[in-house]
């Protein structure tokens, strides 16, 4: 009982987080290599070597940082990623936290991620990090609504806010087909919550690294780790709500989920490498004026589809 309900799910989540973060690093490097950004050395070893280097580098300190917040922000971000992944059901029974409102809890993870990323940039007390933090808030407060509408869309046919129910409702047809607008919109949310690629407004090149520009050594390792973990958590959620989670023939459920997560990760990482960063003002307008109405359409579509 304890083993099945407590230890096994916990171990699964922690392992998935660790291996997933590593896989993100490897995958991103392989993609970069395929796109012409090759790096010496083996792709498998590189993330570890990079991690080792960050552990040996000394941690930078700014003149008067908000100490607690600065050191806590990466940890909290990592924790949010773990919470997100804990909501993902690996099979009908193997799920760490099967709340009746896990969809809403994932929404709060996104909202709290905004807080944490802001805190990371704010507490450094450095101009460029500050700009990165505020830019990210503009983005974070914009994509959250899209995410909510899209997720409510998937809750309609499931008649529940529970991820396991959402998966169960996809037994006949996956949501990615049933609500074709949903997954593309949700992927944008994924890029936002991990400020990846085109939505990397927080740690961008024109800010010399933005919120991370003053961070070095172990705290930076924690930050990068958390960011990769957040991508993993997001891909888990996306696979659950749109790609039918553990459902699938032949293979065991968890394996299906892992495969689907890989597919989502691949899409996100590719988008991250192929698209340029949006200017913040464009980004906000795009989110509110184009993507939000699109998510309305998605919701109406989902509603009609659920009733028919």
């Amino acid at each position, binding site marked *: 009982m304890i083993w099945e*309900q*407590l230890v096994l*799910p*916990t171990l699964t*989540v*922690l392992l998935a*987080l660790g291996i997933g973060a590593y896989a993100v690093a490897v995958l991103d490097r392989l993609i970069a290599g395929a796109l012409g950004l090759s790096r010496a050395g083996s792709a498998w070893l590189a993330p570890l070597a990079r991690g080792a280097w960050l*552990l040996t580098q*000394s*941690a*930078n*300190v700014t*003149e*008067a940082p908000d100490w607690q917040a600065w*050191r806590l922000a*990466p*940890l909290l971000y*990592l*924790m949010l990623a*773990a*919470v997100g992944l*804990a909501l993902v059901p690996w099979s009908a029974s193997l799920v*760490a*936290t*099967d709340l009746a409102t896990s969809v809403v809890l994932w929404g709060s993870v996104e909202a709290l991620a905004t807080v944490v990323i802001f805190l990371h940039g704010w507490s450094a*007390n*450095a*101009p*460029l*990090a*500050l700009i990165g933090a*505020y830019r990210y808030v*503009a983005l974070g*407060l914009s994509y959250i*609504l899209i995410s909510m509408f899209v997720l*409510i869309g998937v*809750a*309609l*046919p499931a*008649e529940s*806010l529970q991820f396991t129910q959402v998966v169960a409702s996809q037994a006949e047809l996956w949501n990615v087909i049933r609500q074709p607008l949903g997954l593309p919109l949700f992927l944008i949310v994924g890029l936002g919550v991990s400020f990846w690629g085109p939505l990397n407004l927080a740690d961008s090149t024109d800010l*010399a690294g933005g919120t991370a*520009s*003053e961070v070095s*050594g172990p*705290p930076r390792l*924690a930050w990068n*780790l958390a960011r990769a973990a957040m991508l993993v958590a997001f891909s888990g959620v996306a696979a659950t709500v749109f790609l039918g989670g553990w459902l699938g023939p032949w293979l065991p459920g968890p394996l299906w989920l892992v495969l689907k997560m890989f597919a989502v990760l691949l899409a996100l990482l590719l988008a991250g490498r192929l698209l340029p960063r949006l200017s913040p*003002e464009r980004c*906000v*307008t795009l989110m*509110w*004026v184009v993507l*939000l*109405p699109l998510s*309305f359409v998605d*919701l*109406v579509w989902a*509603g009609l589809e659920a*009733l028919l």
Partner: protein
Amino acid sequence: MELLTLFIIMLVILCAGLAVQWPTVRRQSLPTYPQRAPFLGGGLPDTHAWNRYHVRYYPMTLLLIAFEMEMMFMYPWAVVFVEKGMMAMMEMGMFLAILSVGIVYAWREGVFRWQ
């Protein structure tokens, strides 16, 4: 039980994160002042960075607060949607219409631009 699992996961992650940061950060002494100055490509700031920061998108944030409140109503609504059928659909239509009016109005007033 679910919450306990969640709590344990959070705790473990927190400890793991601390374990990554703590030993090295503890051991080292504070860096020199020149190192601690914010990086500006060799330049220096006049003042601390913390200031009354002019958030250029503040009307958008206020709009969001009002908007988000409506989401509070939408989640329970989603759960009983199929059960209530067309009535819920109409309800949603009305809600989305209201929201759209708000957004279109705000857009027309240039709320989503940098003030």
